[in-house]
C-alpha cells in the first residue's frame, strides 16, 4: 500500500553511495528508485551468468542466470523477472513466486502496489499471472495484457492455432478477449486496447470485424456502428463508454455508440478522464500536422508542430499538463500555458493533488534538472527519477544521482 503521508518529509537530505557498486560488481544496470525515495536498486552482474538485484547495497538472497525489468512498487518495494535453470518467475522484494515459466514479461503493477502481474509462456502456451496466481486457461498467443487496480486481468488471446500464412483461417477471426483467463465467446479479426471501468466490472476494447470494419465491444455487445478505425475506449462510469473513431478520414469521439463530441479532428487519442469524471481530455491534431489538447471538445489556444505525447490530470481535475514537442524541442504546457523550456527530454510530470504545483524532470545538454512551476529548482544531475510532491503540496522530493551518490532531497516550494 502506497501511503505518501507516512513517508519522511522532514529529513532534508539522505545519501546512498552507488559509485562503489561499479567496483563491487562486474557491471550495474540502470538504477531504479523506490517510490518513497528511500531505496535505490539495480540489476547487477556478479559473474558470468550470475545476476542479482542490489538494493541500497544489499543483494537479494538468490542468485539468477538472468534478471530484467526491475521496477519499484508500493512504498519501497522492488520486483524483477528472474531466471534459474532456464525457468522464469517474478521476484518480489527478494522473494520468488512459486510459479515458474518458460518466459515472463510485461510487468503490471496496480497503482497502490497491492497487485503485481505479468504475461507468461510455458510450452508455447500463454497466460497471465497476478500475485502468483496464474490463469487456468492457456492460449496459443496473448497480447496487450492489462490489469485493473483490483487485480482483474485481461488480454487479447488467440483461440486456435493457425498454419503458416493461412489467410483464410485469419479471416474467420481467431482472436478473443480473455478476462481473468476466461475467453469471451465472440471472435474477431483483431482486438486491441482493452479497457476496464473503475471497478473492473465492465470491459471494453477496439475490434476489427472484417478487413475494413472497426468497432467497439462493450462487455458482450458490439456497437452497431462501423468505423474506418478506432482507438482505445474509456469508461466514464459503469455504463458510459467513449471512444475515438475514424469516419471519412477524420476522428470523432463517440459515446455509447452515438456521436458525442461535435468536432472532427485529424487525430484524437489518449483520452484522459479527470478523476472526478467531470472532464474528458484528449490529445488532438487539427488541422493536419498541428497538435494540441482538447478538453470537452474545446481545443487549447496553443498548438504545436510535432507531437503531444502525454497528458496528466491533477487529482482534483483542476490542472491538466501536457508534454509536447515543438520545433525540435520538448516542453510542458500546464493549463494551456507553455513553459517554453525547450528541453531535449521532458519526463512524466508530477502534479500536487490540488493542481497548484507541477514538478518535472527535464534534460538539457545531457544533464537533468528539476523544474517546479516553470522554475529550475535543482540541476546538474546525471540521473533523476520522477519527483514526488508531498500530499500537502508544499514539498518536492528529488531523487537523483550526483557524482556517484544517490541523493534523496526534500525541498520546499
Amino acid at each position: 500500500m502506497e501511503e505518501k503521508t507516512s513517508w519522511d518529509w522532514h529529513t532534508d537530505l539522505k545519501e546512498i553511495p552507488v559509485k562503489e557498486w561499479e567496483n563491487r560488481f562486474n557491471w550495474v544496470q540502470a538504477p531504479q528508485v523506490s517510490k518513497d525515495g528511500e531505496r535505490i536498486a539495480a540489476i547487477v552482474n556478479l559473474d558470468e551468468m550470475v545476476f542479482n538485484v542490489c538494493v541500497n547495497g544489499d543483494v537479494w538472497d538468490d542468485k539468477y542466470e538472468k534478471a530484467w525489468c526491475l521496477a519499484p512498487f508500493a512504498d519501497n518495494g522492488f520486483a524483477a523477472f528472474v531466471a534459474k535453470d532456464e525457468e522464469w518467475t517474478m521476484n518480489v522484494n527478494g522473494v520468488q513466486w512459486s510459479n515458474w515459466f518458460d518466459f515472463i514479461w510485461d510487468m503490471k503493477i496496480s497503482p497502490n502496489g497491492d497487485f503485481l502481474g505479468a504475461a507468461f509462456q510455458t510450452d508455447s502456451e500463454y497466460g497471465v499471472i497476478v500475485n502468483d496466481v496464474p490463469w487456468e486457461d492457456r492460449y496459443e498467443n496473448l497480447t496487450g495484457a492489462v490489469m485493473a487496480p483490483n487485480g482483474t486481468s485481461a488480454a487479447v488471446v488467440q483461440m486456435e492455432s493457425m498454419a503458416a500464412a493461412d489467410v483464410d483461417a485469419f479471416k474467420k477471426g481467431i482472436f478473443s478477449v480473455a478476462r481473468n483467463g476466461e475467453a469471451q465467446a465472440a471472435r474477431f479479426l483483431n482486438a486491441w486496447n482493452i479497457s476496464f471501468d473503475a471497478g473492473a466490472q465492465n470491459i471494453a476494447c477496439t475490434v476489427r470485424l472484417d478487413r475494413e470494419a472497426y468497432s467497439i465491444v462493450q462487455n458482450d455487445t458490439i456497437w452497431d456502428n462501423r468505423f474506418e478505425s478506432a482507438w482505445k475506449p474509456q469508461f466514464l462510469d459503469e455504463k458510459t463508454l467513449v471512444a475515438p473513431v475514424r469516419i471519412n478520414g477524420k476522428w470523432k469521439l463517440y459515446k455509447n455508440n452515438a456521436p458525442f463530441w461535435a468536432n472532427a479532428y485529424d487525430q484524437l487519442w489518449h483520452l484522459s478522464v479527470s478523476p472526478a469524471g467531470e472532464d474528458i481530455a484528449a490529445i488532438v491534431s487539427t488541422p493536419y500536422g498541428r497538435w494540441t489538447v482538447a478538453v470537452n471538445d474545446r481545443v487549447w489556444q496553443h498548438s504545436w508542430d510535432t507531437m503531444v505525447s502525454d497528458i496528466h490530470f491533477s487529482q482534483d481535475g483542476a490542472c491538466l499538463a501536457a508534454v509536447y514537442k515543438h520545433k525540435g524541442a520538448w516542453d510542458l504546457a500546464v493549463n494551456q500555458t507553455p513553459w517554453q523550456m525547450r528541453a531535449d527530454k521532458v519526463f512524466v510530470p508530477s502534479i500536487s493533488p490540488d493542481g497548484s504545483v507541477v514538478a518535472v524532470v527535464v534534460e538539457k545538454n545531457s544533464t537533468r534538472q528539476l523544474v517546479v512551476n516553470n522554475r529550475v529548482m535543482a540541476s546538474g544531475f546525471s540521473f533523476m527519477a520522477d519527483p514526488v510532491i508531498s500530499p500537502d503540496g508544499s514539498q518536492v522530493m528529488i531523487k537523483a544521482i550526483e557524482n556517484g551518490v544517490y541523493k534523496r532531497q526534500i525541498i520546499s516550494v
Partner: protein
Amino acid sequence: MQTQDNTMTEQSRETNDMKSEKATDPAIESGLKRLTPERIQKTINQVLEKETGPRFKAYVETCMRCGMCADACSFFLSNDRDPYFMPAAKVKNTIWEMLAKKGNVSKDFLRQAVRISHLECNVCKRCAMYCPFGIDIAYMMLLVRRICHKLEITPQYIQDTVNSHSVTLNQMWVKDDEWIDTLQWQEEDARDEFENLEIPLDKVGADIMYSVIAPEPKFQAGLIYQAATMMHAAGIDWTMPSTPGWDNSNMAMYTGDNEISGRIARAFFETAAKLRVKRIVMGECGHAFRSVYDIGNRWNSWVMPPFEVVHALAFYHELLTEGRITIKEKYKKKVTLHDPCNVSRGRGLHDKARQVVNMVCEDFVDMVPNREHNYCCGAGGGVINCGPPYKNERMVNNRNKAEQLAATGAEVLIAPCHNCHSGLEDIIHHYDLKMEIKFLGDLIYETMEKKIYTPGK
C-alpha cells in the same frame, strides 16, 4: 529459398518468357470468387472518388502519353522493352480502365490489376524522376493495391505479413516473449566479445531507441548482436523496447491497408515517446525507413516523424566521422554499393553512404547508374513479400539489375537494406554472379577496432 533449379535458370535466361507460366495465388483466387460485380464497382468508385482528390485527378489528366517513364522502369528494361511493363502502361491497364468503365471491371481484369500493382511495380518512384511532369505513378499503383485490399484479393504471403502486423505489431508473428528472449540471447553472446555489453531494455531517458525489423530477431539475430557491439564500443546511451512497437517495418503500407499501417506507426513513435528518447536509430532497412519517415507518420497527422529517425547509414557516418568507432584495417576486397530507393531516392543518404564505404573499404567501385538513379533491387515495394510463388518472375523481371551488378566487376556487393539484400541475394544466385553480399554493418563490424569509446580521447 536461395537454391535454384539450374535448368530453370538457363531456360528463363534464354527465353526470358515466364509470362505463360505465372504463379497462381490461392488468396487472390478465393478472394475473386467471393466478389460480386456490385462490390467491385462500389469499392473501386469509393476509393477513386472518396479517397483521392485533385492530386490524382491532375495525374490522370496531365499525362500526355509521351512514354518517357519507360526507361525508368527495371521491369520494362528487363523484359526487352516490352511496353506492357512501362510505368504508364501499368496505369493504363489499371486506373485508366477503371475510370473509363466507372469501376465496372471484370474479375480477370482485377486478377491482372493485382499482379500489375503488387508484382510488376516496386513503387520505387524512379519513374517520377523520368516523367517531365513529375507524375507519381507509384502513388497510383498503391491506390490499386488499396482497392485490392478492400476487395480482399491481396496476394497471400504479403497479406499474412499484414495480418501479423495487425496482431503482433511486427511483420513476422514474433511473439512478445520471443522478441525479448532473442535480445537477451544476443546480449549474452555479445558478452564474449565485450564482457560488460548490455542491450538495455526499456531504459527510460536513454538518448537513442534502436529499432529493427522483425526478420532480424526471426532469422538474422546476429545483426542485433553487431549493432549492440557498435553501440557499446561507441559509448552510446541507448535502449531497445521490450514491448510491441519495436518493429519499424510496415507491409500494410504496401498492401493499401492504411489503417493498420497507421496503427503500426503510432505504436512505434509512442514507444519512443514513452521511453523519452531523443532520437530513433534503425537498422539497415529501406522500406521500414520509408514507413516511419514518410508514410506511417502521415496517416497519423504527423507531417514529419515526431522523432528524428536516423537510418543506419547516417548513424554509421556519424559514428565514424566523430571517431566513436575507428577502423582497424580497411576491408580489402573490391566492393560496390547498391543505393536502396527508400534511403537514397527517399532520403538522399547516398553521398553519406559512399563516404562510409570509403572510410571502411579500400577498393570501391560505383555501379552505373547510381544514387537517386540506381535501379531497384526488384524486391522492394512489397514484391518479395508476395512470397516464393513469384520468385522466378522476380528474377526475370530484374535482369537489368544483374547486368548492372556484373558490370562493376566487384567481389562484394554492399546492400544496406533488408529487402534489397534478400532480393539481390536471389539475383546473384539466379544469374550466378559470383558476388558476396553484405550489409554495411557487416563490414564495419569486421573491420572496426573492438575498443570502447571514451569521450574526449
